[in-house]
Each structure stands twice: as C-alpha cells, then as structure tokens.
C-alpha cells in the first residue's frame, strides 16, 4: 500500500485559516449588501440597521471606541476597508492570501491565483463617498468567494488538506449563521407592533437574504414565520448555510482526516464535534425556542470555539514527546536571511 503523503501541521493550520478568512469576508460582504438594499425600503433613521451589523460582527467594542454612533459610511468603512480591524474584509483577504502564499505548493495554482486576485482587487479599492457602486462591489466580492470555493472543489484533490479547507469553511459558516440569527431575532421580536405589517416581512426577508436563503426557505415553508425561519437556519438537513448542514459536513471532514470509525472518537475535537452534531440531530426546534434562542445560540458559538481550539491542539500545536535538542519556540519569524539574490 502506498502511504498517503503526510500533511505538515503548519500547512493544515494555514489552509484551515485561509478557508475561514475567505468565508468570513464573503459573509461580511453579504450582510453589507443586504443592508444597503434593506435601508431603501425602510423609513426613518437607518442607524439602528447599521449598528446591528456591528453587533453581528462581534467587534462592537472596538467600533464604539473608534467611531461612536453607527452610520452607513463608518460601518462600511469599518467592516470592509479598515486595515486596523482584523476582521474587515480587507484584513480577511490579506490574511487569507498570506496563508495561501505559505502553502502555494499544497493548494492548486488556480486557488492561489484566485486568492491573490481577490486581495489585489480589494487592495486597489478605497471607500469614496456615494453608495451607487457599493452594491455591485459587494456582489462581486461574494461571487469571487464562490468562485474560490468552486475552484477549490474542482482543482484540488479531496485529500487531507482539502478536508482541512472544508472544515475551516464550514465551522466559520456555522458561526456566522448563528450570529446573524441571534442579533436579528433579538432585534425583531420586541417590535410586536410591526407584526403583520409589510416591515415585519421585509426584516425577516433580510435575515434570510443575509444567508442567501430566502428563495430556498419559501420553497419549503411559504409564509415567513419566526419559528420556521429558526428551524430552517438551525436545523435544515439540506440547506448549505444552515448550522446543522455545516456541522454535519465539518464532522465528515474531521472523520476523513482522522479515519476514526463512526460512533467512536480518538481526538478531543472529534468528541466535541460529535456531541454538537448529535445535539443538532435530536433537538426539536420548539425546545430551543421555549428555553430561549439567544441562550442556545450563545452556547452553540461557544461550542464551535471549543471545537476550533481542539482542532488546533490535536493537529497543529502538538509537540513530540522525547528528547530533542532544544531552543525557544517561535511561531512567526521575520528575521531577514541573506539569500544570494
């Protein structure tokens, strides 16, 4: 038997993060695009809408400190173009590219060229006043991320490294879907006066559009009902951005990486992932709503974080036992070496 080519721990880490950063950039681009569209339909002050985007990102404190009150301009600036915000689209694409650059020999050339192009395109843009060009800009970003995923699936052998790519992408996506649902559900439910008005539908549509799920939801459920929307986004077996779907696929990739028999575990990450998956498999949506959606989603995000940490510990940051010549460890090195160019 030919032994499969081993995957370096550092490389596994880099492809995993490359995928997460691109998925993150795509999600931010989609939220902004949906919000630009939404505010055209809503009367009055749009500030609250833009603030909700900041809440979704989880970087509210940083934003408050640097910008204060949310406006379209400063939110778009912060989430898309800000070099100092490590989770802005710009920063995500820069990090994705740095990671891709360090593993060019592992990913396909086509993947590298696509990441490079996304970054170079983003780096050549800056925010100018006027919003006319923004919807198209964010649409292009989304498309280029889809293109990257298509290229990845079509040009890279579905080997261990590819499974780390998919693992990163799915965990990131599950996290983002849970965040958008959390923030919007919290915001929308109190406005009971809107129930039954056109605005109610507009808001819920926007939630679904934020995960490209409106059309698929309609086909399955028809009317927009909060309960059904939660079921769709958390539990749906087949919709590719539902949390259940993402965790099921992440679990499949993790098992492809380890080769562990289903129903058993060898690594901590497998155990945590399996627990989360079976919880999603067997929890009725009404139980979640009765005990409180916010609490549920909050705990879920915590579990995704734990899985992320466990993956790192199991496959990347492990150290061999036994005697080795020692020195201090350093993850990053910036020391210039005298090459002979």
């Amino acid at each position: 038997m030919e032994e499969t080519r081993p995957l370096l721990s550092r490389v596994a880490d880099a492809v995993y993060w490359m995928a997460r950063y691109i998925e993150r950039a795509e999600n931010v681009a989609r939220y902004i695009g949906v919000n630009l569209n939404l505010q055209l339909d809503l009367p009055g002050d749009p500030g609250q809408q833009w603030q909700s985007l900041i809440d979704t990102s989880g970087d509210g404190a940083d934003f408050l400190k640097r910008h204060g009150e949310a406006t379209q301009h400063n939110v778009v600036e912060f989430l898309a173009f800000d070099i100092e915000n490590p989770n802005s689209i710009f920063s995500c694409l820069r990090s994705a590219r740095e990671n891709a650059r360090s593993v060019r020999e592992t990913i396909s050339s086509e993947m590298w060229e696509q990441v490079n192009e996304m970054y170079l395109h983003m780096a050549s843009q800056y925010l100018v006043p006027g919003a006319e060009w923004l919807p198209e800009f964010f649409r292009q970003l989304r498309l280029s991320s889809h293109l990257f995923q298509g290229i990845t699936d079509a040009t890279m052998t579905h080997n261990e490294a590819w499974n780390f790519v998919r693992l990163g992408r799915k965990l990131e996506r599950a996290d983002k879907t849970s965040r958008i649902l959390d923030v919007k559900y919290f915001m929308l439910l109190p406005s009971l006066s809107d129930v039954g008005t056109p605005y109610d539908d507009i808001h819920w549509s926007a939630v679904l559009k934020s995960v490209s799920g409106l059309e698929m939801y309609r086909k399955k459920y028809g009317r927009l009902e909060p309960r059904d929307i939660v079921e769709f986004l958390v539990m749906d077996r087949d919709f590719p951005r539902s949390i259940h779907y993402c965790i099921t696929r992440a679990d499949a990739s993790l098992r492809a990486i380890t080769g562990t028999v289903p129903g058993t575990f060898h690594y901590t990450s497998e155990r945590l992932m399996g627990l989360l998956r079976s919880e999603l498999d067997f929890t009725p949506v009404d139980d979640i709503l009765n005990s409180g959606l916010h609490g549920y989603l909050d705990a879920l995000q915590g579990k995704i974080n734990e899985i992320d940490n466990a993956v790192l510990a199991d496959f990347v940051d492990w150290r061999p036992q036994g005697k080795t010549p020692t020195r201090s460890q350093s993850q990053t090195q910036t020391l210039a070496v005298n090459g002979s160019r």
Partner: protein
Amino acid sequence: MQFANYQTEGFHDEMFDATGAPRDEARLLVDTIASLDEGQFLRCQRSAERILLQLGITFNVYGDSAGTERIFPFDLIPRIVTAHEWAWVERGLKQRIRVLNHFIDDIYHDQKILKDKVIPEEVIKSATFYRPQCIGINPPRGVWCHITGTDLVRHGDGQIYVLEDNLRVPSGVSYVLENRDLMKRTFPQVFEGLRVRPVDDYPGRLLEMLQTIGPRGASENPTVVLLTPGIYNSAYFEHSFLAQKMGVQLVEGGDLIVQDRKVWMRTTKGLRKVDVIYRRIDDDFLDPLSFRPDSLLGVPGIMDAWRAGNVALANAPGNGVADDKVVYAYVPDMIRYYEGEDPILPNVPTYLCWRDADRQHVLANLDKLVVKCANEAGGYGMLVGPHSTAQQREEFAALIAAHPRNYIAQPTLALSRVPTLVDDHFEGRHVDLRPYILYGNEIEVLPGGLTRVALRKGSLVVNSSQGGGSKDTWVLADSPENGSAE
C-alpha cells in the same frame, strides 16, 4: 516595431554586430519583431507584466516595510546563445564545478592544496564561509555543491568570463522557467523557425539529483523536502515554486525536529522521517546549535544528523569556502593543480587587497576599478569606480585600509548589451548570465540560465534588489554558420 534607430554605441551587442547588422542567429527574431506594429509589441509587454502580478511572481525587498512585494521586471527581447558557443560554456562550467567540488572536499580533509602552497592557508582560514565544523565529513558521493548558479559576463573584447561562483544558495532558476513560460504565453510568434532548447525539465532533474544523494539506509524513493526561511525571504516565491514543481513538501525550520540524530517533520499524524533536504537557508541560520545561536529559522541538531549520515543536505554546509571572492582569484590555479589542465572559462583579472602591491594599485585606481566585498551578495557592498563620487571612493579607501582581506577589485567590464524596451523604443542595456548546474551522479548544465539586465541607462548592476530585470535566454539547438563568438 523597428530597430532602425537602435545604436550599439561601441558596446558588444548580443543581437547586432559592430556594423549594426543583426547577428546570424538573431536575424529571424529581428525580422519577426520588425514585422509587428508598435501597439502589438507594447501590448505583449504589458500583458506579460500583468501576468506576473496575477501569478504572484514577486520578490520581497529587505529594508522596505514588511510584506512589500515587487515583480522582477521582465523584458520581452530574449538573449540568444548559439549552440557552438553554448557547447564551450558547458564544457567550461563542468570543468569548473568538478574542480571546485574537489577543492572543497580537499579543504575539509587533507588540505593538500594548502600543504603544496598553491593557495595560502591564511586565505582559507580567514574566509567567512570556511566552516571548521565540516572537517572530516563525507557527504554522499563526495558532492558538496549540488546546485550552483555561476555568473558569466561578456566583455567588450567578445570574451565570456566567470564573474562569480555562487555555490551556497543560488537563486533565480524559477525566473528562468517562468520567463520561458511567459514568453510562450504572450509572444508565441517569435519562436517560429528557431529551435530553442527547452528548460522545463529542470525541476524533474533537480528532484532526480536530490533522490540520488539520499543517505545510507533510505528507501529507493527517499523523502525529499525543501527548507525555506519562510514567506518573508526575498526568494520565497522560488522556494514554493520549486517545491510545487517537484511535488515535494515545502518546510520551515519549525516543521522539522531532530530526534536520535535523525530529522523528522511534524505532521497532523505525528512525526515522519526526512531523508534529503534541499535547504534554502544559509549556513549561519541552519542550526542554532552549530552556527548562530539566535537563529529561529533553522533546526537545532540538524548538523549533527548530517554528520551522522542520517540526512543529506543540498548544498552541503561549508561549501561557501569556495564562494569567497578572494578564493575565486585562485580558481584557475586550482584547475591546473587538480586536473593538470588550463581553465576553459577565464576569470576576470582580480586584485587582492591583502597583497600590498595589489592594494596600492587598487587605491591609486579606485575611479577605474570595481571594488567588491569578498563575501557579500546581491550587489551590496560594492563600488563601481567610474560611476562613483569622490566621497564614496574615500569611504572605500578607508574600508580597504581597515580590512584588506575583505576586498577585491576588478577592471570595470564593458558588459555586453541586449536591446531592451524603454518606453516605446529599444535601447541597449547591459546583461549578465547565470547558468544553473546540478551535480549528483554527474554534472548537468541547464541550457541557458537567467539573463539579468540592468534596466537603468548605463548601469552595470543587474541585481533585482538594485533595479535589475530579466530576459528569457535562448540556447539554440543547432548553430547557423558563423555563429561562433569564440
């Protein structure tokens, strides 16, 4: 696109003879380019530059803010070498590499050449890249310089000279391959009617060579890796390019670990043994336990594993002893000493500042000579006399007086030129040539090599860090009449 106003200006031009007529081997190319309209040619040039950026074929510049990447400028007009001249260059390079390898092995064993007083012992013992740690080591097959990139230049007299022996971690071969690829993509019509020798098989030959030097006890298919200092190194693109083309793992120091005098890599499934390392890290940074203790880039204990014969390193540590500009001056003597033959490729006449008579001559003629630091690369630590200011000459005079061993001087060569696109017309620009030589079972020379071009008008410095660019190099498979430049 016409060459009508093109002037050779008294320099040896690789494309046109002294009367301004195209050389035989270049006639077809000149006709093809002349038949294109200007817009067509400029579009090809621009599209080549865009492709370089898209592909991320860039290098990092030290001293610039972290992460600054530039493309290595590419010029569409190739440099042509006739089959006849190449055959001679190839013979000369094989002779030189064989002898340099013999010399290194001698230095780390019996030191016969020092005992016979062909080279003064103090020259070797004071060489920066002489490594006493390597004494007595027997690398597989006795090969120390597996990959060499020798710099050649042609002077105004039409003669090709060896300018430098780059034995340590020579870079640039990826540009040879990418330049050819780029040329075929953007400018395919110029290849018509010419038989240009291919270069694409280099990664395959490199891999084969690396596999032949596997340590005792390694399988027939030894695990080969390429060790890079990481993405901030100026040649990182090349490291990942070669690893990708060879299908081997690209590793950083932190990926490797030494246990039981063997080298292992850290993978998601535990440790895997490594047999052969093509290392692109300088000796100094390779092993903090043997060399610089502050290096975070290397692998602690790797020298010990090499000494034990459990891993092969290419190039072998310590081979830089032959890559010192003072030792360079003795290479013709080495060739006579070890092989009893005259050198095929001549050296550039070199003044050694540690010799009193030479130093006086150098100090009196600083405005005419090129002064080089004996162990710098990349065009750093260099004075080009005719282009220097009085203040720069004073600085170098002081440096030479303080450390005569560290400086050599050579006549300022009138490097040959090749037409190069400048804005919307062609001008002559000075070039050199770096062929790549592999040494495993036998010595192989990649046909052609990297032609570097000094893009600034009149400049003689071709290094990428100093405003240099590159060109495709065409070695023709057969020679037209009168194609010899000997």
